[in-house]
């Protein structure tokens, strides 16, 4: 601030700086305390409804059937893994998890490259129909997945891919077009165009400029879009239930619909099975928490 010579401007800026300071440390008036109290009660409620159902399921999976029926709020007395062992024994959760991983992960890895290519040219270049293409691609966000049920079922069937992981993988490829484009376009746009120009002076071709210069710089965006797409496909239930039938191709969410009959005499095992299905998603989220949060925020803002 030393080099500002205009006294009026200087005064205004000082005032602004001070008021900013004041704004940060708000005095604890009665109104403020009431406000904080209400805010925390509200936030506590939000945390409760978000976390308690899952905590309840996990806790119940360690309780006996009688304890679940007797008092749903009680904490488990012992740390009993029997239910998990018996459930893991009865069902090939390994297969289901692997299927989910192959279909969700495989489709994410491939389509993220496709979408990165599209987002890259949309962000960096001018060409006819650019806006039109971007808009129709992002409009896919509004197409309810169920509306395409019959044509997609028919298509997968005609390709002879019914009840195969390849079929499901193919359907998942088209999953997150709109969201990925929002995220990746913003990401590529933030990479200075000078880099491309410099590269082209160095004789780097179009593809190399993309692959070796831009893509590595966009890895945050790739991770962000990729994780959200992966989670979406990992949790997908409707098409997985529609397009597969044999146990060898069952995914984790689909396995849920089999528990009702299998465990109805035994809530403990039912809750253990539920825990096994939901936990991987939560663990993945725990690792990539920042990216998931970032991707949700950016996908919405640009919508």
């Amino acid at each position, binding site marked *: 601030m030393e080099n500002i010579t205009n006294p009026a401007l200087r005064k205004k800026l000082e005032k602004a700086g001070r008021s900013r300071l004041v704004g940060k440390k708000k005095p604890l008036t009665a109104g403020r305390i009431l406000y904080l109290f209400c805010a925390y009660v509200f936030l506590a409620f939000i945390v409760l409804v978000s976390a308690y159902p899952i905590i309840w399921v996990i806790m119940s999976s360690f309780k006996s059937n*009688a304890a679940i029926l007797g008092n749903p709020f009680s904490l488990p007395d012992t740390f009993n893994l029997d239910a998990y062992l018996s459930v893991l024994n009865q069902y090939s959760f390994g297969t289901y998890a692997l299927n989910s991983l192959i279909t969700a992960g*495989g489709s994410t890895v*491939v389509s993220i490259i496709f979408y990165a290519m599209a987002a890259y040219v949309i962000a960096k270049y001018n060409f006819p129909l650019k806006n039109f293409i971007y808009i129709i691609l992002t409009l896919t966000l509004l197409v309810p997945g169920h509306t395409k049920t019959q044509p997609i079922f028919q298509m997968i*069937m005609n390709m002879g891919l019914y009840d195969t992981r390849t079929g499901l993988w193919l359907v998942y490829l088209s999953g997150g077009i709109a969201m990925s484009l929002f995220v990746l376009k913003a990401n590529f746009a933030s990479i200075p165009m000078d880099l491309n120009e410099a590269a082209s002076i160095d004789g780097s071709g179009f593809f190399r400029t993309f692959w070796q210069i831009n893509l590595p710089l966009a890895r945050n965006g790739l991770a962000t879009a990729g994780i959200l797409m992966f989670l979406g496909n990992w949790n997908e239930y409707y098409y997985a239930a529609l397009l597969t039938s044999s146990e060898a*191709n069952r995914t984790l969410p689909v396995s849920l619909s089999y528990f*009702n*009959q299998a465990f109805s*005499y035994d809530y403990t095992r039912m809750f253990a099975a539920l825990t096994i299905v939901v936990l991987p998603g939560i663990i993945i989220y725990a690792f990539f928490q920042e990216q998931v949060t970032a991707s949700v925020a950016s996908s919405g803002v640009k919508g």
Partner: protein
Amino acid sequence: MKKFLKSVSLFLILALLLSCVSFASADGVIEVTLPTYKTGENVGAIFFEPLVERFNAAYEGKYHITLEELTQDMYSDKIKQLGAANALPFLVEGGDSEWIKQVVIPNDMFVDLSGLIADNNLMDILIDSQVAYNTTEDGKVFSICVPVTRPMGLYYNGAMIDLGDKTCADLSWDEFAALLGENKIAFMTGENAWTTQLVLGSLIAVEEGGAELLSTHTIDKLMDYNQPCIINAVAKLQKLMQDYGTSNQVGAVYADAANAFMSKNAAVIANGSWMVGDFLEDGGKWSNGFDGATVRGDVLPGNVALANNDGYQYWIPASVSAEQQEVGKAFILFTLQPENLEAYMLAEGGVAPKLTPSEEYVAAASENKLLYEYVNAVNADTIIVPNAGDIMTSSIGNTEFGNLLPLLISGQLTPEAFCQQLTALAQETALD
């Protein structure tokens, strides 16, 4: 970035490799997968799983059947889906009867089994009316039913209810209910509301014209429920469910109803003879001091037993390979072998009219007192009619009936309104 590429190609290769499930096996064994609900905790598993094991043992080195679990609730939908995908398994057990009548049979999607019947003299064991029902207009046989009739009644817990020297054959539903006291009946409204359907069936059967109505609508399903015999029966059902339903009856699936009975929360459950297996020993389903030995079997009050011989059972889709058809035929013949029919009757009850029972069977059957009692509760005067579910179109029977029951119980629907809704729904789902 190279790593990136590598992982992409790795994923691609993995996905492709893993999706090519090969059925061919090196040593000439034909391996097939049979999606069925008769596995795991399902009551049908008690007989069916060992049967398949025996089949695999008998045909070792030739055929091998692997069971794949479906839930009973989703079975017929899944079969329809597989049918649309041209991916039916080598053997199907029944399915949505409308779909069979309107899609499978007209489009010749099945293997004609008349040759199998002729070549193996199966008419010596099959029930004539069942074969007649399964014979199409052009003389093909669609499916083969296991020739065992099993009139369905109910079970009650003898430790909780005392009928004195009477049986349900002597009592009306009102009289039976009066003996219940505080005890409950295991009704359900989830899935197809099976145990509730059976009670409704028995209530319709004793109404004037009810027995005839049930008997005449198994092929062409009932489209008009606004009939006095049904309205009256529904009114009685409403009263029974309100006064004697368990606290969890609303939304209860079959397992909940069975659970209520096997934990003494209910003293009565209407169900077929196949349930006796659950009462012979504690397979982890008993709780709250329940003892299977105290269970008694009987007909339904009003002296009604429910049985429907008009149905579809084992059929072989035309879309499967000749090899798989061979396994399907072998399996059907296997289930019809006298020892397997007897094993079936021992496990799930019933009578095979044309089978001369072996001495071993008679001895073993008399040992299972509950089954003996259940089967012999039927007397000369028993009204034997199809079940209420047998006259409903599949979407009514599978979901709509159960979905409407909570409103009947709560009184939001009167019996008349309930029947009107069923009628509207039946006409809606009728195909054009």
